[in-house]
């Protein structure tokens, strides 16, 4: 009698577990839906332009609080396959993605913003990147409604991504305050890296005045400046090369104070750059670095020295 009852409960329990698992399969296997980066979709394409950025962070809630407080970004939470993702919006436009991922202390790695540059064909970009000394860190893959993307490390080890957006690329307009306005590559070999990115994106490369022993290059496409390449600072010759993205601000000094008030850090104090505005490098509470670039609408043209 007791054995029958036990068998009955066992069968019921097993059935309940199976039911749960079967129901979980479609949810866990479902591809995540991310909004397109351009809405409504356009036919514009700007190869080599920084069109999106993603942050991987061990504390998604803290990151959202920080960027909402600093730039007024709003967020839409997306969850699928056990991944927590927050799409960041400014003025109703998606401008960044934030992904939660645990970061055990033993991993000796740190959060960072990943730069996505526009390409027309991710697989072709992969071939060119490999031919020119890059490594593939994340193979080309499709993101429904977003497009196709891949992540590479350039010949010096700086990490970046390419995205063939299925909704077109954002238009070439002046970034609003709080939006991404610029990107720079700080590297051990600007010359080789410039050749690499020129092969990949077809950039025009301009050499700009730089201090003794350093190199400063500007990358352009479609008659617009897209990014700069700088030598690693003379006192940091062995630092790891990296891409740094800049958010447009109207007052860099005030914004660095706000960064600190919100739990972030100032990595490089504000200084005046060649365009006449101030630039600073800061980090969010998890340590992910980004730049602040002061760019006012009302400023006149700078007279080159």
């Amino acid at each position, binding site marked *: 009698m007791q054995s029958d009852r036990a068998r009955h409960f066992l069968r019921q329990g*097993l059935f309940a577990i*199976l039911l749960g*698992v079967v129901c979980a*399969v479609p949810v866990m*296997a479902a591809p995540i839906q*991310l909004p397109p980066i351009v809405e409504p979709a356009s036919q514009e394409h700007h190869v080599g332009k920084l069109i999106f950025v993603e942050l*991987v962070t061990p504390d998604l809630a803290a990151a959202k609080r920080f960027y909402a407080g600093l730039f007024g970004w709003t967020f839409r939470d997306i969850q*699928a*396959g056990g*991944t927590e*993702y927050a799409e960041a919006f400014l003025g109703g436009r998606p401008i960044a993605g934030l*992904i939660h*991922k645990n*970061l055990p202390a033993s991993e*000796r*790695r*740190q959060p960072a913003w990943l730069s996505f540059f526009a390409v027309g064909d991710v697989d072709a970009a992969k071939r060119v990147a490999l031919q020119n000394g890059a490594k593939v*860190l*994340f*193979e080309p893959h499709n*993101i429904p409604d977003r497009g196709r993307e891949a*992540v590479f490390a350039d010949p010096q080890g700086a*990490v970046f991504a390419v995205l063939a957006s299925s909704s077109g690329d954002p*238009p*070439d*307009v*002046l970034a*609003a305050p709080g939006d991404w306005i*610029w990107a*720079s590559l700080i590297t051990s070999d600007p*010359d*080789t890296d*410039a*050749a690499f990115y*020129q092969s990949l994106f077809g950039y025009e*490369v*301009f*050499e*700009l005045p*730089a201090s003794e022993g350093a*190199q400063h*290059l*500007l990358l*352009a496409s479609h008659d617009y*400046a897209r990014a*700069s390449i700088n030598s*690693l*600072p003379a*006192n*940091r010759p062995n*630092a*790891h090369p990296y891409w*740094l993205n800049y958010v447009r601000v109207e007052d860099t000094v005030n914004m660095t104070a706000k960064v600190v008030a919100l739990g972030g850090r100032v990595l490089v104090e504000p*200084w*005046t*750059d*060649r*365009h006449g505005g101030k630039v600073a490098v800061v980090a969010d509470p998890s340590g992910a670095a980004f730049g602040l670039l002061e760019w006012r609408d009302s400023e*006149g043209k700078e007279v*080159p020295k």
Partner: protein
Amino acid sequence: MNIVLSRRFVLAFVVWTVMVLLSGCILPGGGYEYGGGDIGAAYYEPYGLDYGGWGPGYHVAPYRGGYHRPTSGGGHASARAYRPAPASHSVPSIPSQSRSGGSRSR
């Protein structure tokens, strides 16, 4: 007999379900520490990135309104790995039109 068959069926179903779940967790970028499943490209940079050492004279920003280079050139005159832009091309700036003003078609 029926119970034995039913148990085998259940066991087979459980194994199949586990296999399906596992296959959904395999990342296309296997072998690297990068990868966020279906989405994005979740990654962390090597620990200890050093952002210091910048300062006066270390320029990173674009020129405002572009820049007409001196014809004499300057800087590194040695052979370059990249193809430099023709000297007749002035250094462009970033877009200056606001979003409300529409974008230039190129």
